[in-house]
Structures are given as C-alpha cells and as structure tokens.
C-alpha cells in the first residue's frame, strides 16, 4: 500500500490559517491503459481523502482517474485549538493509509 507524507506546522496561534501539504506515493493506475497483450490494466487509484481535526471534518475530496501518479494535495484551514489532524486516504482495493499530525496552539 501507498506511503503518505505530510508537512504540517507543529505549532500555530489560535485561529491561525495553516497550510497542510500532503503527498502519497501511489501509482494511480487509471484503468484506461492496456498491457502488452491488449488487455485493460484494472483501475487502482486513491479514490478518497478526508481530513479531520479534533473529530470534526476539515476537508474531504473525491479523487478521479485523471489525477497523476503520486498525488499532491494541499489545503488550508484555521486551527481553533490544540488537536490532532487525522488524514486518511482510501484506495480502490479498500485499504487505507492514515497519518496523524498534532498541532499545538500556544
């Protein structure tokens, strides 16, 4: 399964707008390509991404087959208080990758 990398600030001021950068190492096989024998290569992509902060949803996204290999996804949100940012990517085969980053509000 894929590996995910996240760049998030460790600390923030209350109400500060922070930028989160994420990158997943994934092939994103579109399901449109054919192998050497002319057979379709089955689709295998990351199809969903969700981020929650302190249990509350921050953003969720549906990924489509045209998204490139190793998808890079960036978003911003305002940090209300200290908490855990939990990000989850879902693969077509049902497996998931999860990453948690703690942001401390000083």
């Amino acid at each position, binding site marked *: 399964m894929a*590996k995910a*990398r996240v760049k998030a600030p460790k600390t923030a001021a209350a109400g500060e707008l922070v930028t989160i*950068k994420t*990158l997943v*190492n994934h092939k994103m096989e579109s399901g449109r390509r054919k192998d050497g024998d002319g057979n379709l290569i089955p689709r295998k992509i990351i199809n969903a991404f969700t981020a929650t902060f302190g249990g509350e949803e921050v953003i969720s996204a549906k990924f489509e087959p045209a998204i490139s290999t*190793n998808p890079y996804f960036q978003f911003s949100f305002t940090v209300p208080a200290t908490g855990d940012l939990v990000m989850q990517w879902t693969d077509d085969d049902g497996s998931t990758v999860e990453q948690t980053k703690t942001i401390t509000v000083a």
Partner: protein
Amino acid sequence: MRITREDQIMKKFSRTLTCIFALSTIVSVAIADEDAELVINGELDISTKAAAPADSALDELISGWRFRTNETQALQMDDFDNPSFIFIEQGEDLYAKVDGSEGKSCASCHEDVASFKGLKSSLPRHNASTGKLDTMETLVNNCRTERMGAEPWKWSKGKMTAMTSLISLQSRGMAINVKVDGDAANAYELGKDLYYTRVGQLDMSCANCHEDNYGNMIRADHLSQGQINGFPTYRLKNAKMNSVHARFKGCMKNIRATPFKEGSDEFRALELYVASRGNGLSVESPSVRN
C-alpha cells in the same frame, strides 16, 4: 508549392543565421543567487563551497546547487519538496524486501540503513580482491548476487538508483573524502587522463566546460564545476534519479562522442577522479538539478 533544392539550402542557411544571432545576443537568464546558503529542513547545514586543495585546478570548490535557479535550489532545501524522496521511499521498500534464493533482504544482514553512514563520502574505493574500483552500484550488486542469490540490478535503472539514493542519504552533510593514493593511484591517473582528453566530434574534454568555463552560460544553461557530491540526483528534465555514470554518458553524447559503458573501468576511474575534485564538499545526495 514545389520545394527546390535552393529553397532547402536557403532554409538551412537562414536557420544557421538565426542560431548565430541567438548566440551573439546577450540574453538575461534567471541565474542563481550566488550568496544563498543551503540549509535543509531548516536544520542541516550543507557546505556548498569549500577551499580547494593545494594541487587542485580549481580556485574554489563550488557545488552544482549554487549554479541552479532559485526555484530549483528551493526544491532541495526541504525534504517534502524534494521529489527524490518518492524514490527513497521506494528504496526503503526494496531494502526490506526479501529477494533471491537465500531468502534474505538487505535488512537481514545490515539491519538499519543508517549503518551506511559515511559510505557515500568514501566511494569509489579500490577493492583489493578484484583489483577494480568499487562503487555503490557494484557493492549493491555484489550483495545481491553473492549473499542474496538474486539477480543483479541494472546500473541506472529505477531499483538501483532508488537503493543508492537511500544509502547515499545516510551520509548527507558529511565531507567527501575519497582516497586517491596507494592502490587507487592507477585508477586516479586514468580518470585524470580521461578528464583532460578531448573526444568526440566537438573535440571537447570535461575540463573545457567544467574547469575553464564554469559560471559561464552554455546557451541557456549555467555551467557548473561538474561536481558529483549530489548524486544520485533528481533531474527535472527526466523526473527520475540519475546515476553518475548515466550523467557521464549524457555529457559524452552532448559532445558527440561515443560514451563508455555504464560500470566500465573508464567510468569508474572517471567517477573516482571527479569525486576527488570535490574532496571537502558536503555530500548532498539526493540533490535536485535541472
């Protein structure tokens, strides 16, 4: 319209003229900020300049990082932005993957990859039992064929460069220090000969660009000293990790010469010589270049 031979000649002629004009016009190109310092992730200081040894042909050793544009430099200053780390993650998977008849992975013998700290900065080195130079690629393949009973990897293909990038990363920030005396002296002399020998239709040696003209523009490209302290390097032009020998091959093709083979004695000797020209610079692997 019928295209006559004259038309074709005129077309060629005007194209040549355009080229000449393009060369003679002074174009302002975005070049690097010469005073920038390379700090990775805001914590690891990399010396991209070093004093040249007494017998060096260079006044000062300057890493290729300093010759790149601000945008390319920035990519290397943060591991998240550095695209090499996609390949390093693949290298981590390969490191732990069991392969071959012995049922072993790299991790079975070497355990933590951090144990390779200091390897990159001392390669290539002379191997007394084979009488040849060992590079990272030959060491990896020796392990694969002799200890793991697996197929060797091709010199510059994805799996090999992913592995060499991962291993080289462990030495990042250490000063390059390759030995050129003793048993390695013959290879060093061969490498030096190759460096200064003019070859190919353009009749150029490595030194013509990288010693006599570093800092000058070769058309739109800013010539560096040709230091290899950042290899394996991620190149924006082909979006993958590049081995030293693949880069040598590219240079030789550019000067219309017939390249040596990757892994040949000639390229190993040249790798030793070029690495020794950077003795004192920090290992930057995995670097980002254009």
